[in-house]
């Protein structure tokens, strides 16, 4: 999105005034730039792509970020780096640089041999650092930057009497530089539309690459940026086609859905081991992977409709997951598999249908020892339908209806029904609870059950004025809700641009949703529509 014309004129006038008064005036080009911090996954993938998979990256020490408007990707545009975080990044940078320059890697990663291993070699250092700088900074380093890093290497080589130690020091400098840790998205005037601004070629390359592959742009994309190919429609579309046809799309897809589904919550997931002994750390890891595998196979391998993820019975299981789902599972090895994952289809009469009945969703949105229809319903509303559920008000007494020994309140449905009699609470709980109650037949760990405290569980409800008896009937109603598609379109656009859509872009979003609802919501089609939209390559001034 470009800046409003009025704002441009105001800035132009302010600039003139500033010039007259000798003041620095704001630059529209700068005001429409953006600074987006790399996620832990993007950091790790960038290092692996640039230096190779054999470089170990302790991703756990990278700060995971904060969620804003439903996405970590939006929070990434607000983040800076605290002193403690920078300390961790510097430590990580030293680990990476040590490996890159060690005996094992230097012969392949460093394109030249120094004149003497114990002394500075400006030419060799410049050759290595300018090449690495291009990939790390996602644009050619300026002459001043190269000089600065080469000087860093020279000074450190001199001090430590070791050429590679010097190179290591300069590489650490690049790895802690804001140009690497943040995606610095720069803009330029759009020649096709006076008074509007667009991302420059290198920023377009980075936005495309991080959106579709969740990693730094490769050499071909950077070359397209350099040649100006990304500024032309055919050149841009050619690169989009290339990226969309790659297996690396799975990296981008997995990261997007991990963000949209709030899978960062697994880092602090707590399920009571004494109540749910089968739910171990391995089960939690498998549960996360199960959902991502299901989505990747559905959307990429089968090119199937996103909405059908709500009703699909196809998934993958490990023995640990099969034990919780209560299904027999042939061993992967018996099927000739190298990994413990086995494709599995739940029978038609099985209660498990779609993503909502997978362990990842059920456990992530529960209390450690009890289910929470409210949390589960809230997650569906907020994560999958992009609706906002307000926080509970102050001064509400919940405890009166929590006594499970009271025969009138043995099930959570009975307790929540009583709770909803409080008009202050009713409005929000009407949004969340019916959806969550349809999942009450699955406990915190995802195990199927039919009673709670000895009373039968009632999973019926209504959704958009249609009655359902349980999640098996609710799932198709969710699938057919246009909000499911518009939420996906909105989240994907926000994720890719690291900003909320502007008012001027809402029309495009609505149109896209309408088209997709009609044609089928397939992943590559959605990605193509978003990346072919010129607004994808713009920012909005703060």
């Amino acid at each position: 999105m470009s800046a409003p014309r009025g704002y441009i004129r105001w800035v132009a006038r302010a600039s003139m005034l500033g010039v007259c008064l000798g003041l620095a005036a704001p630059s529209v080009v700068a005001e429409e730039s953006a600074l987006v911090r790399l996620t832990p996954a993007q950091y790790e993938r960038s290092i692996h792509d640039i230096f190779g998979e054999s470089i170990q990256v302790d991703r756990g020490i990278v700060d995971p970020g904060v969620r804003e408007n439903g996405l970590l990707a939006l929070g990434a545009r607000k983040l800076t780096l605290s002193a403690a975080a920078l300390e961790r990044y510097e430590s990580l940078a030293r680990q990476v640089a040590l490996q890159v320059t060690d005996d094992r890697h230097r012969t392949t990663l460093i394109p030249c041999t120094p004149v003497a291993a114990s002394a500075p070699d400006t030419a060799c250092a410049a050759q290595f650092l300018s090449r690495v700088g291009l990939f790390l900074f996602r644009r050619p380093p300026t002459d001043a930057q190269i000089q600065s890093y080469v000087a860093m290497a020279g000074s450190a080589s001199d001090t430590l009497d070791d050429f590679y130690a010097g190179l290591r020091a300069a590489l650490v400098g690049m790895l802690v530089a804001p140009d690497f840790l943040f995606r610095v998205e720069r803009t330029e005037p759009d020649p096709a539309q006076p008074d509007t601004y667009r991302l420059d070629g290198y920023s377009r390359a980075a936005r495309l690459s991080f959106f579709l592959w969740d990693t730094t742009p490769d050499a071909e994309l950077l070359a397209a940026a350099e040649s100006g190919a990304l500024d032309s429609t055919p050149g841009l579309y050619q690169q989009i086609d290339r990226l969309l046809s790659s297996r690396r799309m799975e990296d981008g897809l997995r990261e997007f859905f991990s963000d949209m589904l709030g899978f960062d919550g697994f880092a602090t997931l707590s399920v009571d081991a004494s109540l749910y002994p089968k739910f171990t750390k391995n089960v939690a890891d498998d549960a996360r992977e199960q959902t991502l595998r299901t989505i990747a196979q559905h959307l990429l391998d089968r090119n199937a409709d996103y909405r059908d993820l709500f009703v699909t019975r196809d998934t993958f299981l490990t023995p640990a997951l099969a034990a919780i789902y209560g299904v027999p599972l042939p061993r992967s090895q018996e099927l000739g598999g190298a990994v413990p994952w086995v494709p599995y289809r739940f029978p038609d009469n099985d209660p498990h249908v779609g993503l909502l009945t997978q362990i990842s969703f059920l456990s992530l949105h529960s209390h450690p020892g009890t289910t929470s229809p409210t949390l589960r319903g809230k997650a569906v509303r907020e994560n999958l339908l992009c609706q906002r559920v307000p926080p509970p008000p102050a001064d509400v007494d919940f405890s009166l209806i929590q006594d499970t020994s009271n025969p009138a309140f043995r099930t959570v449905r009975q307790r929540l029904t009583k709770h909803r009699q409080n008009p202050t609470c009713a409005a929000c709980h009407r949004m969340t609870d019916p959806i969550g109650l349809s999942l009450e037949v699955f406990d915190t760990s995802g195990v199927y059950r039919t009673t709670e405290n000895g009373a039968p569980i009632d999973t019926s409800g209504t959704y958009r004025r249609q009655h359902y008896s349980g999640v098996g009937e609710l799932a198709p109603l969710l699938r057919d809700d246009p909000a499911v598609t518009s939420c996906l379109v909105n989240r994907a656009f926000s994720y890719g641009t690291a900003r909320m859509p502007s008012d001027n872009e809402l029309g495009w979003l609505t149109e896209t949703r309408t088209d997709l609802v009609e044609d089928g919501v397939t992943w590559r089609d959605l990605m193509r529509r978003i990346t072919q939209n010129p607004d994808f390559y713009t920012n909005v001034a703060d």
Partner: protein
Amino acid sequence: MSVDKISRRTVLRGLLGGTAVTVGLPMLDCFLNTNGTAYAATGAPLPPCFGTWFWGLGLTPNQWEPATVGPDFELPPHLAALSPIKEKLNVFSGMQIFLDGKVNQNHYSGAQGQATGRVSRNSSDYSVSLDTIIGGQIGSGTRFRSLEATCDGNRRSGWSARGSNGLNPSETSPLALYARIFGDGFRDPNLADFTPDATAMVRRSVLSAVSDQRQALMGAVSASDRVRLDEYFSSVRDLEQKLAFELERPAPLPACSLPETSTDDIGSLVTQVEKTHRQFARLMAHALSCGQTRVFNLSLGSAFSRLRTPGEPSGYHSLTHEEPVDTTLGYQPKCKWLAERCMTFFTELAQALDGIQEGDSTLLDRSVIFGFTDHGEARMHSMKRLPVLTAGSAGGRLRTGYHVAAEGDAATRVGFTVQQAFGVSRGSWGSESNEVSRPFSQLLA
């Protein structure tokens, strides 16, 4: 004396020309006085230290307020765990955080108000916290500007922020914090020999060169991003300062010793949180006594506390909303038990500092720990009758042993009073109804 003042090259050539050379620097300048409470050269007392301690979900209503105000108050049974530190403790009751028409962000607004002096409309708008303000007054000249840790495994469970761009992430692993403070780069202040680390010097000059690129980037980004970049470059300078500190011969600190380590066991069980908290408390105390920092922030965990006992289906936060009030007792018994455990943890932290003897006084005596929570009655998400605690006297600047009752006042008065005790020069603190200009002057010595 700083190694910066020596020719860097001379030192390093000597260092690296063969085996490491011990650099003898004059020690007499920085000897402590004979009883270890002041630097001998200047007679200045050891500097004051400040820590925040957060626990979620308040205390049990009508059970914790002492019956009398002023000194010589008696701790009610609910606060019995604080008895060992009572003489060095202040208890504040009756205060609240005002929302001024904003939505009560449950388990957030109350803590935010006390930590920053203001309540925002949403959680992405968080400003400078109390520890940063006090750190600005007392924190210079240490290796770490501050240290943050939390006991629930969630790096975002703290309340410390330097600027407007989010919370400082907290350390979750005691072993990792140990390594950060006492591992690579730690210089034992009591060792006679000192050898500057050439690698640290190189690291420092690399960061210095990164800082030099500041101007080039500033012109390319928007006004709001310039603020973010400023914070980033402040962090770079902090790291430079940390390395500079490591390159200087530290002043001897007789009370400094390395803490013991044990394995991590991070989780939400009371026993796990107790162990993790104990480890962090010890680490913070030793970091202060060894001059590594003067400011720390320790949190028991998220205000949505998941503290629990084995086999109990609900965590602490759920219990506050689900456990029935026992009509005979008049309170939620499980919640009360957990709140009392929290008070035990506070006592353990205070004792960790109090156990470090520095001449006639202790580390706690020259420190203040500010203990705060999110709600008065968590069951009702109440913003009133917030319990607040302080321990320690900032080297005699803050009187202790008081119960201060300030019915209806803004709870920011406690933070403002503590700022005054540390010599922060400002006439008021906080915004809207939480702005205060009157400290509890009876506590200021």
